[in-house]
């Protein structure tokens, strides 16, 4: 029995649930404070010792579960059946190459961002709640990556939506609640589209257990092929919601600005990938790529993905709120991955998998930077970041490296994945998309440079005095108090604490280093691609 692979799933889930429940426990004992905590929504400031214990506990749980997850992922194929939902539908975990890949980058990002949050969440408060859900989501994500059939995947996909929602509504302001609702509705709509498809696949597939190359039974299908194509398209659209594919991308730019920065980082870097994983599993492991090759589904999918790549970049370029800009960037980048998958060619799939990994690190790094800007000097808009590099050069350097990687400037990592994506488009026999794809990718890369690099450039080189003095004049129009605030911020805002800087540096370094030494990873991704096609 490989029962121990359940440890990285259940340990964080139980620990997270215990953290959340324990809060209730104290509320019961001391009803007055509990009341205040619940009713007024104001965080009860936790004492320093309590916080330290909390951090220690969360850190230990995260570390141990991540170790177990990695051990499970890299020690060969393992499987375990939890129980049977129906006679022929088990809740079943099996670790294969894709699952191992996803679990690995999920775990790395999760631990790094967790360390970062120990510092960052001081300013958001309600840490017990945050870390409770943070652990819960980690367990659910590991389960999602390990799931061995479509129904298990769906179950944890829904659980992930539900448990990650509290991360979005963390500060419980009106905007946060509305954003969380929007997030939940989009996710649920998407998931139900997916479920709708699962019902069909259940009927027409030999098994819903993931099998490389698909399990569709063409004999059973008979004349219902057209209908099944609709169902498959619904599934792509539905699971694409999580990956921010047009027309259902709107939850990303709403949810990110209100969520605490570490939550945005994992939301963008990891949870978006859950949508990618679901689409990947459906197309390559259940339906089979041959079924949709050359059909209208493939065409529509490619068009939507390309459109999203372009529109996402364009919207990001026009956006002035920093975190929103990054959210739109995620919309665009996640569709790079979906485009790679839609090509149904080996290079395309390789590129998509590589980009999943790279984007996870890069986008977490970018959001962590945004978090540092907010934490250290409360700046959320891009134009406020002028001259920020003078005060925190290390942070901005990390940002710059990550940005370069995302744009795809060699030798940083983004270049490699985009190279494979473009190559995939050229070698896949997809007509007009063969050249249109690379062109759109290029334009989007230019736009990416256009929306990320100015932050660096203006950050290090704030520009001529004339311009700054004009801004100063504008500032003076504002109230005296505002100026004092700005003064205070200026004094306060230096380089962040090591606890925030180190995870950021690790992420940024990974983004660059994976581009310098990509050999093993490429080989691994190519092996997966060869297996499913």
């Amino acid at each position, binding site marked *: 029995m490989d029962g121990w692979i359940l440890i990285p799933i259940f340990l964080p889930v139980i620990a997270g649930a215990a953290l959340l429940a324990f809060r209730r426990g104290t509320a019961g004992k001391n009803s007055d404070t509990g009341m205040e905590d619940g009713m*007024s929504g104001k965080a009860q400031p936790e004492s320093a010792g309590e916080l330290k214990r909390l951090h220690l506990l969360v850190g230990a749980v995260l570390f141990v579960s991540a170790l177990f997850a990695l051990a499970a992922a890299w020690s060969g194929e393992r499987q375990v059946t939890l129980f049977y*939902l129906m*006679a022929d539908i088990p809740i079943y975990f099996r670790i294969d190459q894709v699952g191992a890949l996803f679990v690995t980058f999920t775990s790395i990002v999760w631990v790094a961002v967790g360390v970062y949050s120990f510092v960052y969440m001081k300013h958001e408060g309600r840490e017990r709640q945050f870390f409770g859900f943070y652990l819960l989501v980690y367990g659910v994500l590991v389960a999602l990556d390990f799931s061995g059939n479509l129904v298990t995947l769906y*179950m944890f996909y829904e659980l992930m939506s*539900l448990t990650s929602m509290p991360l979005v509504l963390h500060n419980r302001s009106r905007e946060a609640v509305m954003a969380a609702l929007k997030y939940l509705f989009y996710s649920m709509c998407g998931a*139900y*589209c997916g*479920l709708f498809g699962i019902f069909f696949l259940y009927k027409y597939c030999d098994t819903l257990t993931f099998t490389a190359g698909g399990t569709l039974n063409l004999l059973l299908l008979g004349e219902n092929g057209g209908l099944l194509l609709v169902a498959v398209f619904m599934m792509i659209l539905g699971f694409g919601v999580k990956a921010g594919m047009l027309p259902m991308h709107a939850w990303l730019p709403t949810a990110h600005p209100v969520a605490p920065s570490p939550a945005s980082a994992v939301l963008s870097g990891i949870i978006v990938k859950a949508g990618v994983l679901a689409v990947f599993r459906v197309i390559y492991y259940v339906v089979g790529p041959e079924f949709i090759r050359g059909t209208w589904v493939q065409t529509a999918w490619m068009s939507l993905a390309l459109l999203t790549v372009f529109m996402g970049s364009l919207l990001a370029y026009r956006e002035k709120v920093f975190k929103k800009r990054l959210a739109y960037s995620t919309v665009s980048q996640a569709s790079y991955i979906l485009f790679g998958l839609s090509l149904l060619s080996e290079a395309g799939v390789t590129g998509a998998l590589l980009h999943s990994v790279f984007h996870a690190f890069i986008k977490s790094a970018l959001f962590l930077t945004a978090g540092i800007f907010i934490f250290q000097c409360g700046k959320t808009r891009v134009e406020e970041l002028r001259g920020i590099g003078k005060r925190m050069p290390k942070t901005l350097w990390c940002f710059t490296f990550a940005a370069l990687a995302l744009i795809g400037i060699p030798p940083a990592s983004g270049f490699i994945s985009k190279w494979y994506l473009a190559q995939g488009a050229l070698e896949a026999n997809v007509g007009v998309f063969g050249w249109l794809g690379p062109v759109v990718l290029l334009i989007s890369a230019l736009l990416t440079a256009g929306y990320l690099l100015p932050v660096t450039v203006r950050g290090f080189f704030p520009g001529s005095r004339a311009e700054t003095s004009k801004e100063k004049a504008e500032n003076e129009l504002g109230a005296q108090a505002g100026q004092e605030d700005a003064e205070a911020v200026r004094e306060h805002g230096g380089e962040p604490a090591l606890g925030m800087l180190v995870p950021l540096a690790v992420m940024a370094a990974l983004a660059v280093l994976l581009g310098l030494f990509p050999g093993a990873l490429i080989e691994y991704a190519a092996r997966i691609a060869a297996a499913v096609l």
Partner: protein
Amino acid sequence: MLDFVQNFPCFSIVSCMFAGIISSALKGKGAKILNLGVLLAVTVMSALTLGYVMDLGESYIYVMGTFSAPWGNELRVGVLEAAMALFFCVIMLLSLMGGQQKLQEEVEEGKQKLYYIMVDLLMSSLLALIYTNDMFTAYVFVEINTISACGLIMIRQWGRTIEAATRYMIMSLLGSGLLLMGLVFLYGLTGHLLMSNIHQGVVHIVEQGEYHIPLMVAIALMCTGLAIKSALFPFHSWLPDAYGYSTVASSAILSSLVSKGYIFLLIKIIYRVIGFDVIQQSKIINVLFVFGLAGMIMGSLSAIKESNIRRMIAFSSVAQIGYIYMGIGLGTEAGMTASVFHVLSHAVTKSMLFIAASGLLQASGDSTDFFDLTGAGFRNKTAGAAFTVGSLSMVGFPMFCGFTSKLLFARAAVDGSWKMLPALIVLAVSTLLNAIYFMKTVIRIYTPLREPAREKRFRKIGIGEQPMNFVALICFILLNVVLGLGAEPLVALLNNGLKMFA
């Protein structure tokens, strides 16, 4: 030779009925204790019966009195019947437990006795509907059921409930009337009242090709009658008031048991009286299918518009009953299994929702304003958790029983007939609509309240204050999760029962 266990169904019906009669001579407290005792006894007896029938592997017939078929009166007990009886008892116990406190507050001291009498009678009639093998007995108990249900609605006396009870009475009597007329037709056609004998007669008629129209009319009358009584759209107008304003135990019982009793009778008529094949050939089943679909959408739409949370839950019942009829209307074994499973899952979820909602309202100064529920989940934690679980189950979230029933429905719908697409699409749309109003409420009850002025009016309800309520809700949650995760044996049992049923 009769095994002693075989007597239990008869004992259950009779003991409930006598408990009602004896209670009328007792005081409130005594009636309550008697009611509890009888319900517990019936639960145990049903469980034993279930075990016995599962061992036996087939259903048995229990002859009432000395006349044998085709004149005498019979009970017929199979796995499905025993399972239903057990289940109904458990839900009844939990609903009463959860609604007890509210009952004491809302109902005058002198009338509480009456309430327990009504519950006893209702239980006895439900059990009779489940077990009986005689159409006329079924009709008689339908009437008893109606009258006691009216009593349950009216027990909290204010304008709204009286109006609701009157409405319920009128609609229900119309339904019973139609059922009776259908019954008369069938009697005229076949000359029998025992279900198995009617079935033989019907098969004979169909083989001969005679009396096609009268037979169809009879089926239509009975289906319509029972559809009205179980609040299938568009006959649901009595439901929101009846569920929304009566005392919470009544709402829970009415929504989860009373309407389900009628649906069970309908399934019985379909399987045992008319015969599944005949029904399938008639187009009536398609009509049920279409109205089921309409109910799924319209019920949810009305629920979205509703701001009174209890009426909202009531409207959601309309949608859920639509699901059940949709499953019946599919006209397949799988559809029927899904429907029966949904009867159970809806009963568990809906009674929990009603009790949880009442707990939340209590923590919000019993206001009907939706916004007063803000933060209620923090003020009454058990109710908040139970409401969340119930909502997720209704929305069809994996792990809870609502998901299992949806899975079963979908599995039944994907069979390639023309009903597949409409069923799946409406299932998807209705799920989304459900998500809109249930998630809206869940978020609302967990949104912290920031207005001190309002806060003063509300109070916090701890677990210690309502221990019974707490226990009931925890049981409901557990039942929900068990049905959601471990549905497989139950589905097998229901399948088995349905086979035994015909």
